[in-house]
């Protein structure tokens, strides 16, 4: 089904209805007036006929009127007998006088007899003025028709526009509404009851959803927090067990497998805690961060890891990227991005970090495009990273969400490119 705007939809039907109804009304009106006008003329023609015949019976001179004269009638004697004396009225053109001009007229034609002599009587009435009147009427009707239609459309346009304004305001609010930013649905006041109701309901809904969302967020945070102590006990017990000199190599290997699994669990839990902390606003402090030295120090810290991966990290500085944000978060943000590039690099590759005044690009070669819809989602993993937590980029996105002036984007141009930009 094709989508139409509410206004378009309303107008279409309104316009069709108005055009047809007013056209029918105007046509009927016009038709009635014409009928009335001709009725009046025909009646007066009938009167004239009656008068002429009555007068002709008294004054036979009248019977000799062979041409249309002042009296607008003409009598023609008819040979023979037995004519129908019906009255016949019709519209025609009449020649009057010697000028030979033709004028529109109504013509009454009848037959009467005096002493067995039949005569044809033709009486006419000029309709020149009446036709002009009818023409003017038609013109006025057309003008009236269009003015009414246009007025109705305009009035509707403005009324509808004004009436729907709160609706569009509500729609706009909903578009920018994000559940993870609390209280950002602001009420829209309107003089229309239905829209106020809609607004109140929407506000209530956002409040309920935010409550549930926050509850779940807290739940994840609390659950992760509660897991810290048991995880501590497990991993520390394993560490003690590993020192036991009585265990065999095969047992030690199995213990190590358990230990590494617990290690993953610890990292996962730590990442979840970090996510919970970031989204619950536990990093409020801000200061101007110089990203260039930050990137250098992180790259230096990762050198052993990248050397081990035989990946080379190259930093190209075309400008200084400075941004005011939380120091710890800035570190986590850049660290996770670079770490991600190093972890997913194949051997003998070059990771390029390009720093500009308003953007930072982190590129690493890769054969396959990643799903940009999924890449920042929690626990999204492509097949090659079986032991990573799948939360690194999700943390990146959560940090970005805290700072509306920053954006992060993934592109693929024969290599993976993560672009961190300042919004203009």
């Amino acid at each position, binding site marked *: 089904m094709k989508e139409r705007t509410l206004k378009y939809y309303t107008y279409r039907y309104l316009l069709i209805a108005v055009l047809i109804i007013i056209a029918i009304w105007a046509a009927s009106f016009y038709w009635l007036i014409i009928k009335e006008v001709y009725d009046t003329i025909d009646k007066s023609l009938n009167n004239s006929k009656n008068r002429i015949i009555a007068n002709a019976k008294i004054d036979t001179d009248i019977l000799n009127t062979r041409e249309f004269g002042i009296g607008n009638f003409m009598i023609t004697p008819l040979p023979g007998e037995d004519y129908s004396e019906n009255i016949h009225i019709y519209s025609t053109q009449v020649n009057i006088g010697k000028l030979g001009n033709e004028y529109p007229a109504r013509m009454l034609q009848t037959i009467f007899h005096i002493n067995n002599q039949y005569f044809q009587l033709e009486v006419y009435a000029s309709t020149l003025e009446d036709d002009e009147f009818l023409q003017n009427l038609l013109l006025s009707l057309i003008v009236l028709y269009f003015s009414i239609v246009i007025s109705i459309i305009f009035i509707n346009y403005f009324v509808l526009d004004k009436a729907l304004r709160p609706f569009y305001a509500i729609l706009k609010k909903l578009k920018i509404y994000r559940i993870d930013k609390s209280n950002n649905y602001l009420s829209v006041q309107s003089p229309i009851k239905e829209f106020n109701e809609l607004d109140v309901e929407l506000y209530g809904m956002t409040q309920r959803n935010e409550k549930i969302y926050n509850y779940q967020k807290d739940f994840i945070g609390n659950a992760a*927090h509660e897991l*810290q*102590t048991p*995880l*501590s*006990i497990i*991993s*520390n*017990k394993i*560490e*003690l067990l*590993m*020192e036991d000199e009585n265990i065999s*190599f095969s047992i*030690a*290997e199995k*213990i*190590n497998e358990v*230990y*590494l699994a617990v*290690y*993953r669990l*610890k*990292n996962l839990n*730590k990442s979840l*805690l970090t996510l919970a*902390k970031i989204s619950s606003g*536990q990093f409020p402090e801000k200061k101007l961060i110089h990203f260039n030295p930050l990137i250098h120090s992180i790259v230096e*810290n*990762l050198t*052993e*890891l990248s*050397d*081990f*991966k035989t990946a080379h990290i190259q930093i190209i500085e075309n400008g200084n990227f400075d941004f005011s944000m939380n120091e*710890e978060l800035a570190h986590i943000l850049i*660290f996770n991005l670079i*770490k991600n590039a190093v*972890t997913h690099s194949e051997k003998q590759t070059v990771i390029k970090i390009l720093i500009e005044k308003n953007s930072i690009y982190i590129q690493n070669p890769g054969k396959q495009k990643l799903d940009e819809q999924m890449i920042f989602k929690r626990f999204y993993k492509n097949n090659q*990273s*079986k*032991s*990573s*937590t799948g939360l*690194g980029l999700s943390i990146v996105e959560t940090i970005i969400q805290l700072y509306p002036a920053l954006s992060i984007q993934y592109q693929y141009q024969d290599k993976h490119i993560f672009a961190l930009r300042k919004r203009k």
Partner: protein
Amino acid sequence: MKILIVEDEIELQNTIKDSLEKSDFIVETASDYSEGIEKTVSFEYDCILLDIMLPDGSGLKLLEELKAMKREEAVIIVSAKDSLDDKIDGLNLGADDYMTKPFHLAELTARVKAAIRRKNNHGVNFLSWKNLQLDPDNRTAKVDGKDIELNRKEFDLLYYFISNPNRVITKVSIAEYVWGDHTEDADSLDFIYSQIKNLRKKLQQFESDANIKSVYGIGYKFS
């Protein structure tokens, strides 16, 4: 040296106790705030490990009491909460260090030793093992009085080993101690091996008697 663990999780308390005893500390434990107060009033320790959340009070409160008594013990706060506020509060109240659960036992030992060393102003401010000597303040290392050139990571690595002699130190724990959280990916733990190899080479080159032995592929033992 004597250590007091104030921790309500008995299992964790036991584990820490076992581990520290392996490193030749004398360990006493307290399971709640009142027991903690009782023990600190009656005895003297070199270091106190303090959990913040105790069933009958806060570890921070206990720390305040200690400071009010002008006690000189090194205090390390051990918390399940990785909260910056708690950390700042704890350090402002005079704690020497702050550790977040879960931690590695080897790291705890290293931190306990460091805290005690900083507290004792006996002038002996270096760690030694056999003919190897480490000065943590100046970050220098010597074998038989001769300086060894070590980079920052190699020094950290050696410091971690010398704090935990004759103990099995897991690769994970080494990675986290020396490279921070940078080694989330367990697959890449193998890179620790190349680092250890370099350090071993340097120790041999300077004829140190200290030895780094691989244990099953789980980790290493410094002896």
